């Protein structure tokens, strides 16, 4: 392990000195090019004082795929798994590492979770540590908060993010506030997670995007995972964080397969991910829309465009550093999100970008969001409430004109 650090010592220096991503050296591959990733996933310190919320003392890393010129020390091939398995792996590693980590939610115990994220954990750690709760979201979220204030690190699972609307009182009034109002005496290191987003005909009540409702709550952090790699890393980071973190997963992404490293890695909660570097336009997206964007990107590349795709990952606070660097390069911004048009993440992001980077924009920001309607059950209608690749292609063409 030490040798890996030494090898990447030079690379670290390079990362910290550059203010923008050197696209030739560091290519964070998208899901398509997983096989190209080298085995030497290493621990690179996300250093630099201009990183938002950087904690030099914490080993938060941003593993970077290196090219063949750096010799792969201790090369392990990595292992392939699905996104829900990656979440489970992250969860299990943290439960192994820290006896205070526990899970609570509906059907997480013997049933293994409605999306199998906690499968097998109850058998391994007992059904007190992986706790099945009655159907009382506000109460068991409150329970998790109480347990966190008195020393545990609970992970509260909402069977579907939409159910956490019932827990809004506890999340907003207590989870977000108690660290502040108690004068810092009591901390609440909970992780609230669950699948959200528009699925395949789940009906309006089970297709909600709660990130837009939660984003105003002071005191919480929000992250959205989109690949097995970042799912595991963000899960581990969220568990280790002393702040309450809401981890948004997406119902349709649970079966994504990817090869992830064998070594332990933890991602930074406040960092965005460069999916595809480019020159012409910055496309900001997160969660499932990342895949729609990448699909559109294929089409765009064939048409001669060079979009830069960033998966913002951190929904609160925004990684304005990465986003800003991208805007300074391309001067055009397109936001593609699954939230509703009104009051969604895109709306906040638009405001933040306009405030901070107005001078660098050549055109007004375009924000593609879902329609302001309850998600219909009919498959075709449901498809057209969310943003589709052709719309993204059209928007980019319009922007770049």
């Amino acid at each position, binding site marked *: 392990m030490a040798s890996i650090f030494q090898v990447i010592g030079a690379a670290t220096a390079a990362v910290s000195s550059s203010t923008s991503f050197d696209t030739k050296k560091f290519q964070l591959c998208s899901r398509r090019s997983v096989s190209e990733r080298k085995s030497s996933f290493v621990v690179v310190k996300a250093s630099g004082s201009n990183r*938002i*919320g950087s*904690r030099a003392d914490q080993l938060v890393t941003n593993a970077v795929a290196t090219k063949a010129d750096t010799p792969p020390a201790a090369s392990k091939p990595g292992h392939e798994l699905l996104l829900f398995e990656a979440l489970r792996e992250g969860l299990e590693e943290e439960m192994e590492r820290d006896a205070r980590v*526990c899970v609570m939610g509906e059907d997480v115990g013997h049933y293994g979770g409605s999306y199998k994220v906690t499968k097998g954990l109850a058998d391994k750690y007992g059904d*007190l*540590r992986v*706790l099945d*709760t*009655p159907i*009382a979201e*506000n*109460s*068991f*979220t*409150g*329970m*998790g*908060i*109480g*347990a*966190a*204030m*008195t*020393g*545990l690190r*609970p992970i509260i699972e909402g069977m579907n993010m939409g159910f956490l609307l019932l827990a809004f*009182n*506890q999340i907003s*009034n*207590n989870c977000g*506030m*108690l*660290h*502040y*109002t*108690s*004068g*810092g*005496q*009591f*901390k609440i290191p909970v992780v609230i997670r669950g699948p959200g987003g528009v699925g395949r005909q789940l009906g309006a009540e089970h297709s909600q995007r709660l990130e837009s409702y939660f984003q105003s709550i*002071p*005191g919480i*952090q929000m992250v959205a995972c989109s690949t097995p790699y970042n799912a595991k890393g963000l899960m581990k980071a969220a568990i280790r*964080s*002393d*702040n309450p973190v809401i981890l948004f997963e997406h119902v349709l992404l649970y079966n994504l397969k990817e090869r992830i490293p064998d070594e332990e890695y933890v991602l930074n909660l*406040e960092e965005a991910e460069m999916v595809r570097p480019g020159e012409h336009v910055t496309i900001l997206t997160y969660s499932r829309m990342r895949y729609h964007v990448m699909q559109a990107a294929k089409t765009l590349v064939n048409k001669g465009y060079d979009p830069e795709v960033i998966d913002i990952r951190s929904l609160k*606070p*925004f990684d*304005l550093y990465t986003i800003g660097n991208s805007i300074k390069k391309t001067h055009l911004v397109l936001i593609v999100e699954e939230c509703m048009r009104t009051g969604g993440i895109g709306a906040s992001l638009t405001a933040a970008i306009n405030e901070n980077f107005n001078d660098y924009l050549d055109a007004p920001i375009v924000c593609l969001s879902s329609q302001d309607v309850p998600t219909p059950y009919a498959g075709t209608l449901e498809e057209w409430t969310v943003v589709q690749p052709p719309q993204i292609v059209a928007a980019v063409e319009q922007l770049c004109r």
Partner: protein
Amino acid sequence: MASFCLTKSRSFIIQTLKSNKTSTNRTSYIHNNVSSSPLPVSEHAYYSHKNVSIVFNHSFKSIYVSRRLHSTTSVDELPAEAPLQQVLDFPGGKVKFTPKLTFASGATKERVHCYRVLDDNGQMLTDSDSLGINKELAVKLYTNMLTLEVMDTIFYEAQRQGRISFYATTTGEEAINIASAAALNNNDFVFPQYREPGVLLWRGFSLQEFAHQLFGNKYDYGKGRQMPIHYGSKKLNYITVASTVATQIPHAVGAAYSLKMEKQDSCSITYFGDGGTSEGDFHGAMNFAAVMEVPVIFFCRNNGWAISTPVDQQFRSDGVAVKGKAYGVPSIRVDGNDALAIYNAVSEARKMAITEQTPVLIEALTYRAGHHTTSDDSTRYRPVEEIQRWRDDQNPVKRFRKWIESKGWWTDEAESQHYSSIRKQLAQAIQVAERIEKPPVADMFNDVYDVPPKNLTAQEALLRKTVKKHVQDFPSDVPL
């Protein structure tokens, strides 16, 4: 009787299943299983092995169907003689059948009895169950109750004079505050509503510390961020008060869960009023605590009023104690103005909670002799005579004083001495707290997260700049 039922049911099952043409595998399996041993009749049959539960489910379905639809079931499904079923083996335990169509009344014939140790005149009832308490403890209980009473009066007056912005008294509930705290250990977690500063007082929070919080100065542990009376102390295991009603009840259950996980020899306790029991959080938490079997004490201060709502408009059950039965939580009703009764009940409840790992519900009947808060005038919705009666006759401080005086442990002289000493201390505390400066503006952005993120530091810088630019528009006594 049971075996008779089982024999009958066994043949019945096989017959029914065969006639329903279930798969041969299942039928033969069930046949083997049933013929080898009787049906499981444990309390928790539904937890049992998956295969056995198939047998169980089928037996349940077939018995139930036959009893309900005997007139409509086809002849070949019914056995030759109808089985004489007295008991249904249902998840959670056996249930006896009855041919009588009677509804259980919503009202109880007799209200749950209320446990008390001292009578109205402070004399110990001869046949009461009571722990012996020595002079030292009795005097400590009394002096704390008196201190609390005086503290409430002085701080209330201070609010009326405009020195503090807000206050809520615990007048009438001094016994609940002090006696319950006395029965606990210092490492038991306390999750208060907002009318329990006495618990902090008992544990050693000083009058000066109370004053600091009320004035929101820089020595306030909450760093001036919360309203007055929203005390909190990590050191004394008293979780900061939040204004939201009943949200602390599930927190207490969570804390009890953490104690159970870490196998600690302590419990958690949460206080709430009669009004708080209407909130959904109360019900979810009670239910959950019973299912999880965690050491938590639910202490309901039934003081008759939720601001202006009397209890008969809050619920129609026999108070709160009966709700314990509904959730499977052992419960007791105590006289909330009897310090000894509360002390005994909480001591016993604590022992029970920890050794048996069970939640316990205590309903203390008392009266909110003061107004809801300083923003309320309760004479507008309740008769002054009623308030006066409770302040005089049922005053918990007076009752307990009568008792310790009868034991020769307290005198008038001690009373006046303590009374004036506390008054002096309070006046001093207020004076000191009033003069200390408020927390700086910089503190406003701390503790939102463990480390301030960039957007918050930017906001703070902007605010600082604005304040410096328009000094005259901002309060001068708040440092930057």
